[in-house]
């Protein structure tokens, strides 16, 4: 039983499936994210797949600032992802709202709508920086799955 648990723990880090959501980005960050999937960077060698489906995803990559329109969409997508999950916010706009921070329709960074685990700065960030952010997120994912298990056990005890 312990062996299977360890295997699952190892597999979580080895097989992160991404979901990429563009809040209101200028597409600069999105092009850099998609560049990670090309033969030059080839993130599939880490087992990373662009899942395109919140129900299959482990990591949510968000670009662009949040506005009143897409806040609900973002929260909906986040709610549809099964635990354990992490959110990586890519680019200046996603982190803080960027140059659109003072615009009347922008709420600010992604963390105004959903909890964010990793912030990747840059306008746009390099693909290397995005991969670095995702790898950092994997560490958090492993940590979260530990906590998740503890939560379940605590609930069971109650």
């Amino acid at each position: 039983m312990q062996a299977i648990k360890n295997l699952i723990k190892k597999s979580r880090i080895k097989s992160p499936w991404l979901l990429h959501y563009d809040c209101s980005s200028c597409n600069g960050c999105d092009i850099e994210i998609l560049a990670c999937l090309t033969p030059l960077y080839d993130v599939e060698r880490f087992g990373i797949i662009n899942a395109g489906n919140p129900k299959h995803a482990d990591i949510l990559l968000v670009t662009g600032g949040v506005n009143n329109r897409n806040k609900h969409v973002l929260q909906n997508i986040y709610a549809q992802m099964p635990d354990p999950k992490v959110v990586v916010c890519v680019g200046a706009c996603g982190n803080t709202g960027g140059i659109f921070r003072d615009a009347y329709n922008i709420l600010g960074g992604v963390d105004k709508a959903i909890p964010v685990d990793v912030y990747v700065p840059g306008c746009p960030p390099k693909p290397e920086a995005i991969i670095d952010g995702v790898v950092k997120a994997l560490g958090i994912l492993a940590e979260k799955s530990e906590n998740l298990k503890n939560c379940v056990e605590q609930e069971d005890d109650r």
Partner: protein
Amino acid sequence: MFTVSNIIIAILAVILTPLLGGLIAGLDRKLTARLQGRYGPPILQPFYDVFKLLGKSKMMVNGTQVFCAWIYLISAVSSVLLFALRSDLLMIFFVLTIGSVFLAIGASSTPSPYSQIGAQRELIQMLTYEPLLIVVFVSIYFVTGSFKIDDILSYPRPIFLSLPLIYLVLGFALTIKLRKSPFDISTSHHGHQEIVKGVLTEYSGPHLALIEIAHWYEIMLVLGICGLFWSTSWIGLLLLLIVTYAAEVVVDNLVTRATWRWMLTYVWGVGISLAFFNIAFLYANRFVN
């Protein structure tokens, strides 16, 4: 029937088949990556994916979905079991069909439009490959005089030599079953395309893992049926399977996804005429000799 050797064969088949299926899926992904000029994931990647999915929290739309995922797995395992016990080809075919039908039912039980379209496309795919599989089995019967795998294995010559065109027809069915291009129309290879993941869209976590494991069983079963075509020697069998699978991967990388209309007309048109020529040739041969 329930001899010790049969029980051992059954247990080995149930345990080894998914391991082999996962390994083949891993090699497939590596080879695909190399063909695209990428380094590719580790060969054990499909196992990592499945174990990760098993460890995720359960999220389901409705109970029907979960039930259907289990039936899909059970039918795939039973058909592999029947194959390992050298049972009847037609029986295996019917058991396999039950699983595919339930996969489509499970997908159409959810309100998601992607899942719905995927389910309908899955049914069209079944409509395409099932008559061809029946034609393949009937042709095997035509040559060996039996549907029993036991009798087919005792046939002295490789069946491939009598049925080369029928093997191509089986290739169509294999491509559809493997969900590879140009026939990956019910679940697209990549989730970020027009129907997301088609029939698999609404399955998540452990239930998706069940379907993935069932898929490995199914692939191994169809490869096993391919193997029947050169059952007289191990080297011939391995060569045939390796060439077949390599051809699948190359075709997968060369072509784009077809529409269901093209698939239905092309696969039926070409498949049934190939089968017709092969059987007509065999029939004429009987009179010559």
